[in-house]
């Protein structure tokens, strides 16, 4: 049996790597990919606690399912925004999209 702390350490490392990506990348889509990594780390944490701490209560599993659904919605919406930004201003880099109104 694998101890719970293994899963927690794995998800912590994955979260930190995703956080590095969010800070270090400048292209909006690459930042989005890093956010996906962070969300996957959070979902691992939810499911690990749910299965190890209280297998009868489904809250953690359902929460992880909703995290996945919300992440899919977020990706769709964010890519729509990035496409519009690119079409109207010819840039996909968050550094250059630094004003709220053109």
């Amino acid at each position, binding site marked *: 049996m694998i101890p719970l702390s293994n899963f927690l350490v794995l998800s*912590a*490392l994955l979260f930190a790597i995703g956080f590095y990506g969010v800070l270090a990348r400048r292209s909006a*889509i*690459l930042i989005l990919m890093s956010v996906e990594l962070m969300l996957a780390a959070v979902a691992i944490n939810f499911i690990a606690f749910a299965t190890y701490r209280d297998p009868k209560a*489904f809250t953690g599993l359902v929460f992880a399912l909703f995290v996945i659904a919300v992440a899919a919605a977020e990706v769709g919406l964010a890519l729509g925004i*990035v496409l519009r930004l690119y079409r109207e201003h010819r840039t996909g880099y968050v550094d250059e999209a630094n004003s709220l109104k053109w």
Partner: protein
Amino acid sequence: MLARLPLPAQLDRTIMTGSLVAGLVAGPILLILLALLAMGRISGVQLVFYAAAAVILFGAIGAVTISNVVHAAMCLIATLLGVAGIYLLLLTEFIALVQVLVYGGGVIILVLFGLMLTNAAADPVVTDGSQKPFAFGIGALLAGTFVAAMLSAQWGLTAPVLVPFRIFGERIFRDFSVPVIVVAILLDIAFTGAFVNARRPEASETTEAAK
């Protein structure tokens, strides 16, 4: 021999380099793990866990450091499939299947379309100083804090229990029906918003905006 295959030159180079790098990284890890298994130091389940963890961590590092965006997206696929393997180890098959379908299928396709419809060929040339050392420092601090906290805590443990599909579905749609409806509405709103943002403006709208 490779020249005769009907592949674009760029594609076969990419495939060869990618599989070479992946094999060079994965091969030694797998060998070490198999040796540990043969010596009886780790069990089969632990071998699967460490292999999946290696796939996840190396894929994640590739996804945030490789400058070619398509290669980074491929690393992201490896990471997300590894996460599905971790879900299988945690005995939640349904969420593993959802992970493969939604992330491995839908999200990756969306991201690749986004990369190809914009000019995100690489990270832009930086003129105002690199932010990578700062980001690395913050990431290392975060990882150190989390790992230290999680290793020092004591969790009361119960063994994981397999949740059958049938019971999972019953619980979701009976006890969590309101959140399911809320998520359905959220998805509806999000994709309507994505459509409104991503469609091409019609000719009448652009002329009105020009006035």
